[in-house]
């Protein structure tokens, strides 16, 4: 059955030519020469004032990268990238490590203002009704969360400002740029960096290991529930630059943190490369929620320009009973190549992946997840919704595997896709690998399997079946999106109403 008009209209609102964040800002920048070599890596490392072990780590990655070939298995097509035609380092000139907001170039602040990102703590604080710490405890979590968000703002290659650092430090939480963490907390960085995504993991992760310029670092110590949402906002501004950020989040025993990232870039005719690596580590009983609203510039209506988004994201449920949950709303980028994964190493650990990917224009999305069950009694859940319109190609690619010792591994996967128009394509490529007889894997791509009880409940109240299903699914999606602070959820909110009518596997 074809898509209904309402859905078509909603998707149209986020079509490529409606991109709102395409403005460009003229800012004096400090750039490394174009191209990639050991000298450039030394330059980046020196700029960041890094210890020698970090430089060695980068150089080793670079040497490995030289021996690697670009992967071709994803269902995406693009002209070969000239890795020598990219600036690997670009930083706004006026930021020799700003200590407070007043040191930051007002032009940059204006950019974030325009994007609707709150960087001024006072303003955000004004949004909270009760600020007295003792009273705060009584305020429900939701109010607490929706009022305040600590933000790390990354502009091209550097982090320009991180808010609420002091208050977080009081709780024992470290939230800063990764460059700062390398300088201030080398023992933590050395212990965890590359432990989830090794330097030689894949072509783009290796490249990132060699040239990453900034990103966020989060450390939540034992037993601490992070008092506010943490978020990073990535903005690519400079022409011909690549953004290579590295994010590392560690939740110690019993800790909890919710983190979100948002991304936008100006409208340009050239393609720009974004190759990030995100590593999450959850120890015993820890929980990490990682949400992404990806809205890089998708290219124009003719498929010209746009960001190549080649990202490696992986979470390691290292401890028993740990939990990692990925939520992503993907609307931007010319090409997306991204598989946020969970390694379920600890016994009773669980992983979740919720995704909504909308492609328009000539966008190509090849995204999904990997759930690697290694420990006993591990469980995972994958919910993916892909919506393709225009001339776009939207692929779900996901792997679920249970290893020999993963007794009682449990997975449920549901991926639905919807096509709008006959010039686009939707593809589903699930990989299921079971090596343990007690594993229970289910993969389905039909809407009829939504809990019969729920459906019955809704239908009993006189709502037709199709609407009932849409209501249940949207209710579920909404549940996830509501976790995102409003500032980041603009695009996400628009998607809530997209119904599942006419969906195909």
């Amino acid at each position, binding site marked *: *059955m*074809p*898509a209904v008009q309402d859905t078509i209209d909603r998707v149209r609102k986020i079509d490529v030519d409606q991109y709102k964040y395409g403005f460009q800002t003229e800012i004096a920048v400090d750039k490394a020469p174009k191209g990639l070599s050991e000298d450039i890596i030394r330059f980046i490392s020196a700029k960041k004032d890094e210890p020698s072990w970090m430089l060695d780590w980068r150089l080793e990655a670079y040497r490995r990268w030289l*021996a*690697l*070939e670009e*992967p071709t*298995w994803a269902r995406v097509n693009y002209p070969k990238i000239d890795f020598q035609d990219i600036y690997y380092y670009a930083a706004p000139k006026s930021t020799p490590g700003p200590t407070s907001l007043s040191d930051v170039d007002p032009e940059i602040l204006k950019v974030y203002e325009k994007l609707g990102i709150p960087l001024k703590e006072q303003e955000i604080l004004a949004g909270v009704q009760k600020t007295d710490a003792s009273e705060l405890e009584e305020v429900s979590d939701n109010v607490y969360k929706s009022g305040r968000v600590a933000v790390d703002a990354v502009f091209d290659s550097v982090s320009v400002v991180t808010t609420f650092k002091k208050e977080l430090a009081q709780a024992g939480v470290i939230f800063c740029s990764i460059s700062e963490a390398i300088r201030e907390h080398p023992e933590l960085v050395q212990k965890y960096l590359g432990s989830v995504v090794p330097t*030689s993991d*894949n*072509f783009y992760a290796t490249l990132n290991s060699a040239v990453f310029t900034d990103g966020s670092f989060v450390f939540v110590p034992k037993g601490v529930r992070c008092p506010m949402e943490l978020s990073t906002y990535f903005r690519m501004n400079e022409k011909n630059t690549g953004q290579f950020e590295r994010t590392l989040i560690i939740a110690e025993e019993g800790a909890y943190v919710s983190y979100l990232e948002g991304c936008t870039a100006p409208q340009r005719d050239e393609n720009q490369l974004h190759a990030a690596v995100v590593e999450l580590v959850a120890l015993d009983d820890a929980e990490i929620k990682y949400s992404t609203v990806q809205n890089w510039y998708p290219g124009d209506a003719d498929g010209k320009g746009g960001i190549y988004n080649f990202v490696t994201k992986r979470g390691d449920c290292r401890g028993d009973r740990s939990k990692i949950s990925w939520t992503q709303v993907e609307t931007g980028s010319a090409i997306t190549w991204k598989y946020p994964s969970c390694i379920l190493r600890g016994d009773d650990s669980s992983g979740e992946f919720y995704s909504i990917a909308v492609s328009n224009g000539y966008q190509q999305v090849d995204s999904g997840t990997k759930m690697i069950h290694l420990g006993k009694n591990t469980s995972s859940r994958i919910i993916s919704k892909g919506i393709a319109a225009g001339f776009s190609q939207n692929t779900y690619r996901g792997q679920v595997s249970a290893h*020999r010792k993963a007794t009682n591994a449990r997975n449920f996967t549901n991926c639905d*896709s919807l*096509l*709008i*128009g*006959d*010039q*686009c*394509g*939707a*593809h*589903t*490529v*699930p*990989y*299921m*690998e*079971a*090596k*343990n*007889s*007690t*594993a*229970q*894997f*289910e*993969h*389905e*791509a*039909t809407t009829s399997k939504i809990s019969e009880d729920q459906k019955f409940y809704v239908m009993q109240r006189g709502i037709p079946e199709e609407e009932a299903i849409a209501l249940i699914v949207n209710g579920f999606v909404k549940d996830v999106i509501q976790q995102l602070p409003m500032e980041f959820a603009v695009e996400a909110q628009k998607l809530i109403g997209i119904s599942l009518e*006419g969906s*195909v*596997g």
Partner: protein
Amino acid sequence: MNMHTQPQRTPAETALIDAFGDRLSLLPGDGAVMLKRDDAIEAIKHGLPTRRIESWHYTDLRRLLNVVPDFDPAAAAKAIAPIVDGSTVLTLLNGVSSAKAPVVEGVSVQRLFEKLTDGSIAPGLDPYGSDDAIGALNTAFVADGYFVDIADGVELEKPIELQNLQAGGQTHVRLPVRVGAGAKAVIVERQAGEGAALTSSVCQLVLGEGAEVTWLIVQEQPETATHLAQFKAHIGKNAKLTLFVMNAGGRLVRQEIMVKTTGEGADFKLRGINLLAGDTHTDVTMVLDHAVPHTASTEVIRNVVTGKARGVFQGRINVHQYAQKTNAKMACNTLLLSDDGEFSTKPELEIFADDVVCGHGATVTEIDHDHLFYLMARGVDEKSARGLLVKAFVAEVIEELDDEAIVEALEARLDDWFVTHG
């Protein structure tokens, strides 16, 4: 990973290339056929596919087929009784067709080496792509087979059984079958034998308008044999094809199924059971092209994995841009009964048309404890209860075939397997 290296040839690759040189003078074919053979062996010279080739992701042929047996002219296979009494039997004994093919009205049967010699089947010998290792291997070495043509409107009362039997060595056969408009037939393809043979077998079926065919592949090779098979079909307007595949043997088995709907109203049904035991590897790979509007397909694959067996099901449904109103459903269910066994599945959908209904489901699980309890509460001992449930799990698929003689015959094969492997 991803290193630029030109790998060394494996013993199997070297043996195949050498064997081609040695056998060239024995292989039938005119100039056109020989050119196709040359191209095919060139493809093999580039190396057998590894898991880096997406379509061979779970069956690393280069590693699994490290050595191949020599051609053995002395090997003598014997014909076996057909699974349905009274069937018309066409035998291929160690790759050689029979000079005395039975005569059935409306059916013309020709020995394939004649068609290779006169070059009339040369156009059909091309492999379908660079990753088609089975097609290339077969084209390089194919020496015989049968060409079967069922005339328009002919309704066969008895099944035709094509027996491909080995007793060792290598055999490479091809079975082109054309079913005319409005014709009806049941065709049984038996793949069996003894010894450690390497077999490649390619079936090419073309269904004319309104034709109805039930095709059964019964593969019961010994656990020492390597069986590389292809089944290709084009389904014409309003034609119906029911394909049933039973894999119950073989050391290394790859069964490729490539089906295309070429006329509106075409209908394809695939039912498969894979009974896997021992230290074996069985891969069923299907590519289904819905190329025209208003066609339908359903696929149900049931797998039982015991011992150290490794099973693979890859199923890809392509819905072309103009194939509106396609209705395609695929399910793959697996019972993994052993901790040493493994099963991997990749049910893919590639959809380019917006007004279609497509779905797939896949499960891997063990026997339902509630079901087991239900039976045991009624005094059935655990072993028998498990046996009953496993058998019911696969028998369900057989029962869907609405031909009593066929259902009985297949159930008998199923019983045989459970007696040996239960």
